[in-house]
């Protein structure tokens, strides 16, 4: 199966990319789907690069964590857009249908499992990005203003270290 994926990588990538970009409103998808400079079109650029990396990764040995890492850039974007959680990760499932045309019958169950594994990784990462957002929301103003006051000894009772403790992963 991995060989088939490798051989058909470009075809898979194109279809998967289209399916992912088409989760955006039609007028936007037409612009974001263009192969333009990656700095002029970060959603399109990052989405394409990420999907490409994921397709490469799954033909090698990998852990769920590797998958999560590889998926991060695209999920990180979708986590701050107006997708609900299901639609933020639904693009992963699109790969099932796309794969059907190239994956051999005997491998199809394995392929579905692979996509399921990917979906779980995507969901994990989505949750992590959402947590990042909530934490930023909770700590930002304290970090900006209170830390300066704290240093100046103008406020004493804030223990901000606690608030920031779980910040980095």
């Amino acid at each position, binding site marked *: 199966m991995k060989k088939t994926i490798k051989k058909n990588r470009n075809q898979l990538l194109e279809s998967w990319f289209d399916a992912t970009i088409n989760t955006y409103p039609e007028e936007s998808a037409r612009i974001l789907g263009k192969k333009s400079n990656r700095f002029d079109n*970060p959603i399109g650029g990052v989405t394409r690069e990420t999907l490409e990396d994921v397709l490469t990764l799954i033909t090698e040995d990998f852990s769920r964590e590797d998958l999560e890492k590889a998926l991060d850039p695209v999920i990180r974007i979708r986590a701050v857009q107006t997708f609900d959680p299901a639609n933020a990760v639904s693009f992963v499932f699109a790969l099932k249908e796309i794969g059907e045309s190239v994956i051999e019958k005997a491998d199809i169950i394995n392929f579905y499992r692979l996509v399921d594994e990917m979906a779980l990784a995507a969901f994990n990462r989505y949750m992590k990005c959402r947590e990042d957002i909530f934490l930023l929301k909770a700590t930002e103003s304290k970090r900006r203003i209170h830390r300066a006051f704290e240093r100046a000894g103008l406020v004493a009772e804030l223990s901000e270290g606690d608030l920031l403790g779980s910040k980095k992963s």
Partner: protein
Amino acid sequence: MADELTPDEALDKIDYRPRSSSEPRNWLDTTKSVQIRPGMYCYAAKPESVETLGLPYAREWNPTDEDWKLPENWQEILHEGIKERLERFRTFKIFMDICVRCGACADKCHFFLGTGDPKNMPVLRAELLRSIYRNDFTFAGKLLKKIPGGKRLLGSREMSLEALKEMWYYFFQCTECRRCSVFCPYGIDTAEITIIGRELLNLLGLNIDWIATPVSNCYQTGNHLGIQPHAFKDMLEFFVEDIEDITGVDCTPEFQKKGADILFITPSGDVFADPGTYTCQGYLILFKYLKDKYGLDVTWSTYASEGGNFGFFTSHETMKRLNAKMYAEAKRLGVKWILGGECGHMWRVINQYMDTMNGPADFLEVPVNPITGTRFENAASTKMVHICEFTADLIKHGKLELDKSRNANRVLTFHDSCNPARGMGLLEEPRYCIKACADEFYEMPPNTIREQTFCCGSGAGLNAGENIELRMAGALPRANAVKYVHNKFGVNSLATICAIDRAALPTMCEYWVPEVDVIGVHELVGNALILPGEKERTEDLRMEPLPGVEEE
């Protein structure tokens, strides 16, 4: 720019024409209400703040409620408001008339590029207001609205409640950054349309709190954060102590000193919010140096303790009121001219509006740097010089002694803040200062800097907490370029000359590129500048060990 849409392509691409409500892709269709999503909008202004400013219709209201508690004749108020502004602002009238919907601006807005929401295309943002204008104020509009299908043909619509809600939602998803205007063949500045749009919304009391409350604070207390004069002074005195620990030199500044050479005004964010506070320490060190070496007399003021001007995001009148304070203080103190700190929109206000609003400030002198003799012709009328121009001039004339090695731990890139870059063309001076203070500097890709710089996504009063998804999405194009130089050159520091950036970009970095830190240009100056009589420094202004020191 091979990817630019051709006009033909664009007409096909930008679907601006109203269709019947049965057609789902009709973007002007307001039979479905706009979805105001959490994370994308800012909270409504507190009635007290609106009241303090004497702005109309102060009340409790909630954007997600069905009922916005609008005055009964709100349509009439808006109609009159638009009419008045069409007469008053020529640009507004022209921008309403001349857009050919070529689409060149469509994919240039960071909010469109980050959110993927088609209504964040600048052309469609402007169309929110333009469609009403066509309906109410053009001859064709009056004629065609009587014919079936005529409105669709023209792209006009009536001022309905849903249209109003949509305007509110999307005019507060624009940071007035002007990037779109750089690409418009007609020079249409959607930022100015947003400015008018917000002004109109203010006529109905539809302000957001992150703007109205700072404005009200500034109006009453002198700065956006509402910090009282003694706390302002305390804060600077505390910086003085820190600097003395680090350098052994006492940099105590002057406050409200009558007859000083120069009045210095900076955004209050530099005094009260990290990491701007370190930039503020850089200013103190610079002024001490200039005083000792050249006898330059700079004063601060606790009265004009705000360089920023959130009035700019409210209405022309409010902007004028807040701006006037700086000049009143300069006049009262009898200084020669004003030096301004690292700020963004403050410079757009000075450079673009001040002169016709409160100017010319002919009670001040045309700014001349007494140390180098340089005459700042660009500030001949406003009498206010940007500190980066001032410092760059000093460096150019060899007037500052700088030790670059003290910034050797920083691999830098520079984020052009929209207003200094696009609003006044300040492109070289900050880079010149950075390169004089540090060795490693790498530019981000050319289509993301200088005139084409991508906004931080939090400007124009949108740097609140509740709209963080919007801010992070809007910051994606910027962050994407920062990430690139981080991966390619090992950049670990993003330098900037705007107080909003110093507040917004650390959060952006934390989400998108956590390895990168944000730093003001004058923090670099403060680290590098060798003060007369200083002790051997072992720490930088953040009290981190200086490069080379930690190994010993």
